[in-house]
């Protein structure tokens, strides 16, 4: 409760005392945008944490060794994640649904176990110290990025490209009869998602003094997926709301901190049962309302959501 009271009565004080939390919300929001892009094109990909790791390590290594300027490091980190996206995408994007999800998880595990934990330059399992981090300054690019990326992705869903994604999500076969190059457009979505995840990873290294390889495993992947499921995927605001809400939750529920994961799980289940389209469903933000309240006079079996 204190949390909300302070947020409402003293926003500046709140910001000062919760900077890390705000930064984390922002990073998670960018990750949420990244998974939204692939969802929007109908693909269940779970490689975001892996691309994040690529962005993070590249950025830190470039600022440690060649000591290039940070914005350049971040740019290269994101682009390298995108390039990895092309390489991973070529074989796995032929798969669909659960098979695609499993293949992309496989990529994350292979990257983590095969490269990050074994290559000396990444500090092997020990992680990497990042003395150049700047927790206070690092929050600024995060806060600036969110509105810009939200706007761009929102616009993107309305362009020729976004329309093609929606068509592919609805029916791949029909989309190709309309002249849409399905493999190409799926790849574009996958790579944009990878770049955004890499960018989130790069930003994160700037607020932490330490790059911890265990941060980029399956549990992070699942967390990102949860943002999208809880928030909803019918428009870009859904996953962002999901990310902010789920990141803030442990703070709000400080008094039951030990049961954090349990509570996260319960929320996920409640959303799936009562509001399968997510908090932000079709037609904007809606309150959580049990289905049986409007049983009569309603068409059952609403159209399948993004997946």
């Amino acid at each position, binding site marked *: 409760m204190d949390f909300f009271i302070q947020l409402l009565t003293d926003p500046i004080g709140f910001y000062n005392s919760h900077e890390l939390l705000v930064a984390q919300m922002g990073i998670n929001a960018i990750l949420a945008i990244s998974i939204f892009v692939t969802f929007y094109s109908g693909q269940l990909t779970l490689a975001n944490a892996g691309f994040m790791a690529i962005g993070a390590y590249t950025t830190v290594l470039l600022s440690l060794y060649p000591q290039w300027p940070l914005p350049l490091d971040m740019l290269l980190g994101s682009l390298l994640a995108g390039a990895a996206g092309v390489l991973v995408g070529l074989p796995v994007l032929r798969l669909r649904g659960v098979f695609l999800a499993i293949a992309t998880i496989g990529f994350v595990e292979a990257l983590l176990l095969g490269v990050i934990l074994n290559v000396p330059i990444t500090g092997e399992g020990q992680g990497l110290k990042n003395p150049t981090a700047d927790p206070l300054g690092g929050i600024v690019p995060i806060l600036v990025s969110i509105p810009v990326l939200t706007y*761009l992705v929102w616009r993107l869903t309305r362009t020729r*490209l976004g329309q093609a994604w*929606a068509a592919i999500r609805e*029916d791949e076969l029909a989309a*190709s009869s*309309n002249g849409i190059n399905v493999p190409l457009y799926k790849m574009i979505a996958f790579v944009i998602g990878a770049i955004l995840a890499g960018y989130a990873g790069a930003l994160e290294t700037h607020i932490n003094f330490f790059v911890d390889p265990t941060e980029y495993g399956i549990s992070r992947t699942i967390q990102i997926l949860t943002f999208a499921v809880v928030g909803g995927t019918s428009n870009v605001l859904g996953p962002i709301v999901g990310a902010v809400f789920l990141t803030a939750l442990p703070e709000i529920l400080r008094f039951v901190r030990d049961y954090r994961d349990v509570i996260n799980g319960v929320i996920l289940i409640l959303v799936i049962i009562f509001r399968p389209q997510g908090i932000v469903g079709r037609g904007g933000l809606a309150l959580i309302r049990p289905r049986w309240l409007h049983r009569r006079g309603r068409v059952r079996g609403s*159209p399948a959501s993004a997946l």
Partner: protein
Amino acid sequence: MGVLLRLSDVIRHFGGVHAVDGVSLEIEEGAIFGLIGPNGAGKTTLVNLVTGYLRTQSGSVRLGTPAGEVELARRPPHAVAGLGVARTFQTLRLYRNLTAVENVLVGMHPRRPDDTLAQLLPLPPLRRGEQERLEEARGLLRRVGLESERDGPRPAWTLSYGDQRRLEVARALALRPRLLILDEPAAGMNPAEKDRVRELIQQLNAEGLTVLLIDHDMRLVMGVCRQIAVLNFGRKIADGSPVKVSSDPAVIEAYLGKEAEKTAAHVPGSEEIDVQAPARAPAAAEPAAPLLEVKELEVAYGAIQAVRSVSFGVAKGEIVALIGANGAGKSTILNTLSGLLRPRAGTARFDRLDLTTASPDRIVRGGLVQVPEGREILARLTVRENLELGAWVRRDGQVVQREIAELMERFPILGQRRNLPAGQLSGGEQQILAIARGLLARPRLLLLDEPSLGLAPQMVDAVFEVIERIHKEGVTVLLVEQNALRALELADRAYVVETGRILLSGTGSALRRNPEVRKAYLGG
């Protein structure tokens, strides 16, 4: 005029099934070319080979373009579309959750400049193109007979089956194609609506579009095509003018069957024969103690009221038909009765079961089974597994096995393909499967939504025979059918549904003689 599409010796087998087995065809530029043949003859497979969905095993498919002939056989579907070949799908493939207008907008994709980056910044001059496209999309909806104001903003899945077919045509036209392939565009429409499809095809053709038309409605095909090819078991058994094809003994034997006489009559220039059937003894009027009783039923999709205050009853042992135009609300009524939709108001009672609140599975166990429009079979299960699931609620396993064997004998195409995944059946074969599955549930009340959809003339006869037989065995039937003449011949009583209301009711024979009904639904 040159040849627009040239197929030479095209072969595609699936294991032992010779779906397309050495077909050669030439479609002239500017023609309306008809492709007919029994269910499973290979028509859709041929379309899939032309449009890049399937690879040919041998032979060539060449498209005439301004820059000379190009081979289509190795091109992916989107590239074929890019060359100006548009198609519709026999089993509808709309973007169900996108609106009608959005569906058409997607259809413009290949001829629209890639302005994605510019569009990220919504400056007014860039918006103009958007407005123009929107106007064009609305124009295309009107062109195919949809109302752009009312239907444009609706999600595609809420449109009636016939309107969804129209929307597919509009989406295909959005490509501004040079060749338009229509795979059963008039399925699920009544004769008057089919006439509108015919007019549309003729108009488009007059504007220079070449059309390849597949349909089982001989009135449509014979009336509109100048050149027809007939397939049977993957081979071309005849081609030529409608007159020549419709009098060819091989075609009559393989495809037309009893319809042959009527078919000849559909060829323009020959005299229309009267297809009056002998009148049956009129049955009783509204039943006193009906098995199914519907009162003041109202159903809506969001803001759109699909069914308005509909009341009717079906007595035990009756066959009752609902006829009416597309989008009149007939399927909505059936879907409400089987518990898939919930009414906004009114009651529906089957025996003692309240259909407005009971769950769909409870309704099936209560003895009310629906065969839905557009064959919702389980694509990955085999034909046999689909049939066995149809009998899921029954406990008499041995009898079920015997009935399955009987059905496979009656419909040999099911027997031959019993171990094939149902999704690989042809459109008509799937329809037969869906009906057979409904029969196996041994319902007390069977709801049939468009049983003749996509069936070859001979197959329609077989299906109507089966309906008659199970009716004799005591099953009550509520039938929705666009082949209104056949439905009224079979039905004891019928209701005419228009814009969500019941306009008329009466015995089948009375309605068949009613001049208004004849004009609106029986095609003259």
